[in-house]
């Protein structure tokens, strides 16, 4: 590990109760230490949150850029960059506006209006993360609760296909395992922690019970637990590599808690059975409720990935992958989602806002992005910048600009502003609104021409 570093003492002021703009935990108890208008220290945050907030200014996108004929990005002024982007969007036949999970609901409002205007597909990171979870929810139900219920009541926390210690480092500390709750005054000692994962992950290492079933063994394993819950005898000696006695023991333990919480991650959504893994997990939780109280929750990755799904659902009726090409919303999994549209080479203009497809899409999808214009609205130079044709530098929600976000359990949080943004950057909300105005203008001109 790195050498011990003394705490930061050289700062001008503290801003308390800031909300972390990293994962779906949306921890809202961070204190930012500010000096000369920069965050020089963060208290209470995990390694991930602190690293994001104390960003790498070397790679901060500071100026709008357009890629020239020579294939190099060149700085330009805001008007030129916005006009170029608006022109691309207005001229597109099958545009995709992807991302949104690391920006505010306020920004999404303008984005949706723009999408409805030009007939775009609006999609977010759920499409490559918890999309299958949402489908499973549509198949089998959605028994969840807010995280405080877990903190105050849960005596069993079960992590499956999720390495919380790596991707949601404060989840166990703040919500599930360690905190002292009303009915769990001793915190960790009042709870049993179980990890179901083929990998002996850092979360598994902290658990009381680790069940390391086989890779792709999720479905079979949950099915076996359901069978045991329904009083059936298991016919096989080993279930997904786990002795049947152990399965029975675990099922019995799950039945006999007072309040159980199952947290699942991408280990379920990214393996072959995809949404079916979650279907069966949901049904298992529903079954358990006949004996005692159980809830489940997807471990959402970005601080507003759930927010986009919620926002789109209340605005359009569908959570993600919403296609406005026909003048009304359509939603069809595997058809109106980004990866499918890219691998089918349907998309002709791609706008990414507050996301990094270059870092997170499979190569097969990025290959199509290499063939079409890409507009990037983000705060850091990342893999997506390497394939972007227009770059619009945004600002940091929850640090440089306020905004609404929704935690993984749906609790809405106002993320306040702590410092000013770099002068040459603009708020995401402003950028998208500007694009909307400019596209409206182009469309109006086109309409006037057509009517002549």
């Amino acid at each position, binding site marked *: 590990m790195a050498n011990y570093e003394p705490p930061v003492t050289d700062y001008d002021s503290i801003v308390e109760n800031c909300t972390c703009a990293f994962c779906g935990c949306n921890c809202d108890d961070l204190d930012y230490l500010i000096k000369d208008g920069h965050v020089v220290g963060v208290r209470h945050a995990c390694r991930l949150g602190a690293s994001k907030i104390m960003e*790498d200014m070397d790679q901060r996108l500071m100026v709008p850029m357009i890629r020239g004929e020579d*294939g190099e990005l060149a700085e330009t002024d805001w008007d030129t960059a916005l006009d170029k982007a608006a022109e691309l969007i207005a001229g597109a036949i099958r545009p995709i506006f992807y991302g949104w999970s690391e920006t505010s609901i306020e920004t999404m409002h303008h984005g949706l209006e723009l999408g409805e205007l030009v007939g775009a597909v609006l999609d977010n990171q759920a499409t490559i993360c918890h999309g299958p979870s949402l489908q499973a929810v549509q198949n089998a139900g959605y028994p969840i609760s807010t995280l405080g219920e877990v903190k105050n009541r849960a005596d069993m926390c079960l992590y499956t296909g999720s390495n919380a210690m*790596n991707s949601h480092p404060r989840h166990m500390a703040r919500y599930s395992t360690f905190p002292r709750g009303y009915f769990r005054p001793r915190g960790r000692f009042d709870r049993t922690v179980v990890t179901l994962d083929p*990998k002996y992950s850092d979360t598994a290492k902290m658990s009381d019970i680790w069940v390391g079933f086989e890779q792709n063994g999720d479905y079979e394993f949950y099915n076996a637990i359901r069978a045991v819950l329904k009083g059936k005898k298991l016919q096989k000696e080993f279930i997904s590599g786990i002795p049947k006695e152990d399965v029975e023991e675990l099922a019995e333990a799950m039945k006999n808690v007072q309040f159980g919480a199952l947290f699942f991650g991408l280990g379920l959504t990214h393996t072959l059975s995809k949404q079916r893994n979650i279907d069966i997990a949901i049904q298992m939780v529903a079954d358990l409720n006949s004996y005692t109280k159980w809830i489940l929750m997807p471990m959402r990755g970005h601080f507003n990935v759930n927010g986009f799904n919620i926002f789109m659902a209340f605005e359009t009726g569908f959570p993600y992958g919403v296609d406005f090409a026909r003048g009304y919303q359509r939603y069809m999994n595997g058809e109106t989602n980004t990866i499918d549209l890219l691998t089918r080479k349907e998309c002709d203009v791609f706008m990414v806002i507050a996301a990094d497809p*270059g870092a*997170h899409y499979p190569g097969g999808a990025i290959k199509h992005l290499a063939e079409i214009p890409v507009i990037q609205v983000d705060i850091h130079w990342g893999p997506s910048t390497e394939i972007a044709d227009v770059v619009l530098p945004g600002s940091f929600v929850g640090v440089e600009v306020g905004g609404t976000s929704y935690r993984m359990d749906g609790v809405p949080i106002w993320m306040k502003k702590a410092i000013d943004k770099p002068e040459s950057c603009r708020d995401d909300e402003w950028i998208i609104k500007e694009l909307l105005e400019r596209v409206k203008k182009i469309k109006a001109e086109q309409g006037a021409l057509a009517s002549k």
Partner: protein
Amino acid sequence: MTYVDKPAIPKVVKFDEPNAKLRNKLDVMLNTGSDIYQGACKKRGSTLKDEYRKVAGVAYMDPKDMAKLGVSNWDHVKVISDWGEVVVNAAHSRDAPHEGTIFIPKGPWANVVVSPETYCCCDPTYKGIMCTVEKTDDDVLLMADLMRAVYKKYVKDEEGIKDLATLGEMPVYKKL
């Protein structure tokens, strides 16, 4: 800085593993996913840096597998799947044992070899990819170079990519 420039990994690759038989190529299953080093580096924004290459351009392997292949920490391996091939660092997995499985944190390197197939359910298959691993002397590319070499979006002479100068660890653009 508070952040290590590469993940802390144990140095216990056992070449004298009694059952290990040296092989040129291993058939393994690839999993990808988030990892705290990769996450911290990515979200800090340091994706051009060597640090990102160290935390995301890495295959975490079981020490027995490393022994079979004759690689030690930070040796380079080539991972080949049906969807592409990529050179990454080999490193001892903190989560071992998991013989026959390797883990590459999500990022541009992993993307090259994962499957874009969604099976009509929107989400690509990032886990459970069958692939092979072999030792190589090729370099692990920096992020910008990797993006250029794999996707070739702005490359005019595709044959000559190998000879191009590296894009380096800082943003490259023309200032006003």
